[in-house]
């Protein structure tokens, strides 16, 4: 899924400039790191793509969809193509790992008979099938993150947006989770990952975009 940000500026009231005249084109299948300190505009950029936030100026086009012109009724259908993973996970504690994934599919109106097969498949893909009947509070941080990834993957998205997905994890678990993201990207899904931790960035073939106070200060391809 190709993403174009054309002269995008976002100013939060009263006058907090989160992004300033950002121009980016992210191609289909790319793995993009969004690097920067807290408050640099990484999360705002991600939220602009999910259309939780509207730009003050500029244009955002995701796939064929111009987010400035999209109908209100079409937003849910647009979001079905995007898997979002955040640092605070947003798993529902009263639902098991399986139910959290199934819930996402059911909310999209997918028939029950397909939900079971799909939920089990993605839980297996992230290595959580054996722990599927556990509730989030009974799982470790890494396991919870895997469930969140499974939930994002369940709807077969064309784009994964991950906002600090390894923020609370130890080095070993971060390594495992990053491998998961690489595998996801290898299957052709565009991945945009916001992180403030440079240790997360691997020497894989990917793109690194650095943000500072709302400006893009570096846009480079790294790795082999």
């Amino acid at each position, binding site marked *: 899924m190709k993403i174009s940000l054309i002269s995008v500026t976002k100013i*939060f009231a009263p006058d907090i400039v989160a992004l300033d005249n950002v121009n980016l084109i992210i191609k289909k299948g790319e793995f993009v790191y969004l690097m920067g300190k807290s408050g640099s505009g990484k999360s705002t950029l991600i*939220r602009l793509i*999910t*259309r*939780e*936030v*509207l730009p003050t100026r500029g244009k955002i086009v995701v796939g064929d969809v111009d987010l400035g012109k999209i109908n209100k*009724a079409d937003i*849910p*259908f*647009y*979001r*079905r193509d*995007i898997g*979002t993973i955040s640092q605070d996970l*947003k798993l*529902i504690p009263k639902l098991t790992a399986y139910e959290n994934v199934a*819930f*996402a599919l*059911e*909310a*999209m*109106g*997918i*028939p*029950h008979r397909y939900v079971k097969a799909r939920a089990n498949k993605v839980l297996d893909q992230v290595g959580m099938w054996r722990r599927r009947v556990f509730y989030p509070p009974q799982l470790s941080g890494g396991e919870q993150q895997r469930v969140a990834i499974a*939930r994002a993957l369940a*709807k077969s998205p064309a784009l994964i947006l991950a906002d600090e997905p390894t923020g609370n994890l130890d080095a070993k678990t971060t390594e495992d989770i990053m491998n998961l993201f690489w595998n996801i990207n290898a299957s052709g899904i565009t991945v945009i990952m916001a992180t403030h931790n440079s240790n997360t960035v691997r020497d894989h073939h990917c793109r690194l975009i650095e943000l500072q106070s709302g400006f893009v200060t570096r846009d480079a391809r790294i790795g082999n």
Partner: protein
Amino acid sequence: MEAVIYVIDNTFRLLRRQWVLSLLTLITAAAMFWLLGIISMASMNVRHLMHKLENDLLIQVYLKKNADVEYVVDEVKKMNWVSDVKSISPEEALEKLEERLGRQSHATKLIGENPLPWSLQVRVRSIGDTDILAKALNTMQEVEDVVYAGAYIRRLERISYLANSGVVTMLILALFITSLVIFNTIRISLFSQKDEIFIMSLIGATHGYIAYPFILQGIIISGTGSLLAVFGLIYLYGSGVKILQEALPFLPLIVEVPVLLRFYMLLILFGIGVGWICSYISVSRYISVTTKPI
């Protein structure tokens, strides 16, 4: 089909999770609908009584000795408030008087010549027009006297007015209180589910999909409230009618089953409607505010 199952399943999950609040809302709604039902039924009965009286109510018009009866009948028929006019000859009137006197009917013979004049029995179209019609009849040259149960009618009119005002007041009060409690119950439900709603909106659930369980929750609470109110009314009205019919057998009360059934159905539909509208407004407002892009 899956969506329907999900909505029903989730609705009952919401009701179970907040069963105390749901129960309190249900009791409030039931009490309000019950009160509304009681006052509406009282008003319906007063109207029924008025209608009955309207049918039975006659204004007796006594004509002057040499009055042209046919002309007067034609003139009275032209009046807007009149539904029917019947002329009574002095002979007919005397016969009726003798009938009424029964064993003392021979007393009329003592008078000698029939003293009764030509008279008219005028049926009024609406009970509220009785006074004005009587006044209009009194102004006619050929009319000697007009007799009707004026004070009685005015009192009934007052009761009818009070009952109608009571229904309107109660309707507003029931609507306000029930709407308020249902609105707030749904709002609390929404807040308790705010994480789920956020996740659903982010993963691409339509607003309808998010909203239906909450709307159904409102409909179930309010609809069940009105159903309970109807059960209460059936019991109370049944026993009330029994007591009244024994004490005041001449009092015309509504006992026709189809009429009562129609009223009960209307009250249940009203309850469902109130629940639907309140929860719809509550959910729509919440979802549009929380999912509105910044």
